[in-house]
């Protein structure tokens, strides 16, 4: 890390893989992910930290990666939407979003999924109100949130039920 240098060297683990980049202190985490590391799942949708399209999991917590400096994430574990699937298998949240058409243009979707992921990690059986509260930081202009709420409920049910076979 740096003491007032021009560029800082940032090391992160994203979706289980190690990455590093030289960035300015002012480089936003979202820009490092997208431009330096080529991880384009998280999106930029605003400039005031409201839309949540850039949401990732940083050291276990959902955060807006546009409101974190890349240098602040040095040494961190990051999970993005690309890290939800395992060996070609979609995460139950992704399956549920697909089955319930909880997306249309798909631009806010990566952020919605990560917020939902965080929610279900701490509250495996959320009520509708709790779901809506959990995604209040993820704006969607296409779906009216109807199917997003439905999908998160469905995923919660699937993830908390005992596996068959």
């Amino acid at each position, binding site marked *: 890390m740096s003491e*007032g240098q021009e560029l800082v060297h940032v090391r992160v683990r994203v979706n289980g893989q190690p990455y590093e980049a030289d960035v*300015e*202190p*002012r480089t936003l985490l979202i820009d490092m992910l997208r431009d330096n590391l080529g991880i384009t799942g998280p999106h930029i949708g605003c*400039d005031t*930290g*409201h839309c949540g399209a850039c949401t990732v999991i940083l050291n276990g917590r959902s*955060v*807006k990666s546009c409101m974190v400096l890349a240098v*602040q994430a040095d040494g961190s574990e990051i999970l993005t939407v690309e890290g939800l699937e395992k060996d070609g298998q979609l995460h139950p949240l992704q399956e549920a979003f697909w089955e319930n058409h909880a997306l249309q243009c798909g631009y806010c979707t990566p952020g919605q999924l990560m917020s939902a992921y965080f929610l279900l990690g701490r509250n495996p059986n959320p009520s509708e109100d709790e779901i809506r509260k959990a995604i209040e930081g993820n704006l969607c202009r296409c779906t009216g949130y109807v199917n997003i709420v439905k999908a998160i409920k469905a995923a919660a049910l699937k993830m908390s039920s005992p596996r068959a076979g």
Partner: protein
Amino acid sequence: MRPAPFEYYAPETVEDALRLLEEKEGAKLLAGGQSLLALMKLRLLAPSALIDLNRINGLRYIREEGNGWLSIGAMTLYDELEQSPVVRTRYPALREALYRLGDQQVRNRGTIGGSLAHADPSANLPPAMVALKAQIVVARRNGERRTISADDFFVDSFTTALDPEREMLVEVRLPPWPRMSGGTYMKLSKREIDFSIVEVAAQISVDDAGNVREARIALGSVAPKPYRATGAESVLLGSKVDEGLAARAAEKGVEGLEPPSDVQATGWYRKEVSKVLVKRAILKAWRRATGVEQ
């Protein structure tokens, strides 16, 4: 959309942070960044240096002291506080202020110290701190500490009693309130995630006879700093609260208020709604204090 260039420092001790703050002209302390980075991205602020406090150990804790006080480290996250059983049980007004603050992602990053030091007139926490009689512990170089009451801490819009070049907030302390006390935080805004158009934090304790022994009512978004509705408080003292008394207290409490107009609401609307919120907050705090409601 992207901030202007700055130098970046990530000290590992409070002492180093304060040294850098003194040495680097134009430097600002970076806590959660949810307010500061927003301003910097819009280039409304362009500090020449940022001193990141996130690498300092020992500033994130929620500790029940032997004397009943609750000590909270300045870098404790909103979410940690909101989820804390002791906060939920003992200080529902604080918990409600946190629950209605921003969104989950903001609560996962923002800190209590950052919020109080930023002193946004529309922020949720300052009125809650004033209502709860919080004490704010401030650090200077060489281990020096001083304590400022919440009443004195907030001086003006985005201005606190902190010396911005020589001091930093390190702890917030909440006093124990008697068993028969209750509080609440209420907010009126168009969207749930918005800064309030009007907000009220109320904390009431009652004596064995059920009369109000102490009442602290603080409003936000109506003045440059939290507004103590002392007029309302004095109406309540010594009485049992009902709808009529609460309404009268609210009327008295906002008498002197001249809230600002902005793109979200006019001063007229803020004043009208202040009365309503103060009344409702008094009733709820009362019901919690008397055990009628959880």
